């Protein structure tokens, strides 16, 4: 009886997890599927397999009729990708360095209004994007800063520093400060201790923060939309403006490529994390000398 029940339970659990993953991934798989569908009129009706949408976004010749093509200019798309990459890489570099240094300062030194400072650093993370976007726009306009790649980078840094700060702070909080004391005790100066002990131990946090900063910067639409101006367009803003003129099959191809890029980044991240873990396994072996 209980055996039957156990079997049922197992079946139910299997079905449940299957459904769960369908729920998570079905929309994404649909897009991937549509990106290979040659039907230019209605992407939901399968016609034949084609790579034309991919060829089209890279400006290669296609078998599609001129009127089926929607990407007006491949150059525009590539420029958007380039802007996105420039913005994301610069912001990642800047916010990772500043966020990490800030986290170190807040964790290692005592000063007045420390918890208020922490709160200020936490705020940009929870502030609604739309508020931040409008505020930044008004700020840039009122100080007379031209909108463009520079303003996007500055805008992204304002909240990405917070993300890096939070992640590196968490890592620092989990780190035993006595390790730094032990290093000093063994004759290492402040800089040597930082390089040989602190940095390697918080490196996974820094890497995690940097990766998150990169992904968020690449992905951000709302804030960027307000502060990008007319000359600089990032990929999300470009896609959004494409969609406003109707959903076109190239979008699926672009989305699929973006998806692929994120998977690669995530896979690299996971790989690095596992490597870090296997370097310090928690297993303990008994030594015969002990007894």
């Amino acid at each position, binding site marked *: 009886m209980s055996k039957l029940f156990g079997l049922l339970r197992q079946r139910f659990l299997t079905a449940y997890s299957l459904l769960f993953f369908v729920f998570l991934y079905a929309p994404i798989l649909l897009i991937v599927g549509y990106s290979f569908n040659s039907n230019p009129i209605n992407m939901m009706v399968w016609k034949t397999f084609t790579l034309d949408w991919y060829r089209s976004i890279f400006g290669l010749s296609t078998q599609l009729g001129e009127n089926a093509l929607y990407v007006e200019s491949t150059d525009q798309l590539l420029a958007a990708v380039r802007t996105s990459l420039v913005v994301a890489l610069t912001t990642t570099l800047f916010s990772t360095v500043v966020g990490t240094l800030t986290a170190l300062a807040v964790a290692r030194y005592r000063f007045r209004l420390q918890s208020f400072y922490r709160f200020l650093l936490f705020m940009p993370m929870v502030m609604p994007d739309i508020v931040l976007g409008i505020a930044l726009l008004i700020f840039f306009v009122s100080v007379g800063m031209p909108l463009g790649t520079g303003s996007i980078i500055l805008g992204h840094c304002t909240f990405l520093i917070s993300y890096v700060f939070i992640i590196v702070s968490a890592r620092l909080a989990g780190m035993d400060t006595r390790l730094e004391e032990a290093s*000093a005790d063994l004759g290492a100066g402040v800089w040597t201790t930082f390089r*040989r002990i602190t940095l390697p131990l918080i490196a996974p946090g820094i890497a995690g923060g940097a990766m998150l900063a990169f992904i968020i910067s690449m992905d951000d639409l709302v804030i960027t939309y307000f502060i990008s101006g007319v000359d600089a367009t990032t990929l999300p803003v470009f896609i959004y403006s494409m969609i406003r003129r109707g959903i076109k099959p190239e979008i699926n191809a672009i989305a699929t490529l973006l998806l692929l890029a994120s998977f690669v980044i995530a896979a690299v991240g996971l790989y690095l994390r596992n490597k870090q873990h296997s370097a310090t396994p928690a297993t303990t*072996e008994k030594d015969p000398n002990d007894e």
Partner: protein
Amino acid sequence: MKPSSATAPVVEIRRATKRFRTPEGQTVHALAGIDLSVNPNEFVTLLGPSGCGKTTLLRTISGFEALDDGSIHIQGRAMNHIPPHSRPVNTVFQNYALFPHLSVGDNVGYGLAVRKVPRREREMRVGEALEMVGMNGMQQRSPGQLSGGQQQRVALARAIVNRPALLLLDEPLSALDRHLRQTMQRELKSLQSELGIAFVFVTHDQEEALTMSDRIVVLNGGHIQQEGSPSEIYNRPVNTFVAEFIGESNRFQGMLEPFDGQFSRLRLEDGDTLTLMSPASGAADALHVMLRPEQFCVHKPTEAAEEYASLCGRLAQKAFVGRDMEITLETASGRPIKAALRGHDSRTLAERNVGDEVTLWYATSAPHVIAA
């Protein structure tokens, strides 16, 4: 090292004072004017209850806490403005503080690598140091792959490989089980005499302090209570705190009055009396007198050179704890007396029942008079 430093103290601490402000707004006097010097090759133990300032004293020597007042000299050099990494001192931390991202070999070699010792020499010295603690051949392991006792040995090797003038050890054995702890106590002691390094060892385990130290410094409330060899501390405590803190003891308080010739009598408040050799300063003040449980016997030695006195009472408790028979006697006035009996005495007592009348003897030279 200059030849003169062979006899000069390694560390000299004068009037060391350290206050902490607690978040509640109070001031804690962690060190209230400590004077202490440690000689080369000496094993000094700081002993005291939790919160008495042991760790604070170590941290001021290693440089992690700055003194509010007073001075610390190491090998004759004033240390007040020398940062921790420039002091010729190494520490074995209570939780070992091994670097989790470095192998055992790199952990032990850290101090040498920081000082730019060439790799060849470094590997050799790391091997030697690990050999001393019985861990050679484990260089490639990571600290996470070691048992507690092994981590402790690595922490020790990491400190001694630098050949410091002074090694500070903050309760290094507290995380180990009793058996391993005793093994490590012996190893640590023999390692110390082998190396010729001065050790300042912190513990709140009095047994550990008594077995390992050349000198014990008993601390309480930021003050040194007493300083001396283990037997001095145990047999001649200078105050009631030390008497109570170290070992078991029976403490009596009363007025001393002259008795028969060389003897005096301590008249206790409840009417009991204790006979003892007259102390040198035979004032008739209120006094504390201490008698250790093991100073009692049931059978009065027949051919003893000294005089014996007795205490009578009812057997209130008895417990056989292996080598000793531990009993509590209740005198007529209800005062409990703790005694630990051995051998023939223990066997005799085994036949007595709780409630029986028992007479305990003690040599009149045994009671120790505490001035304050």
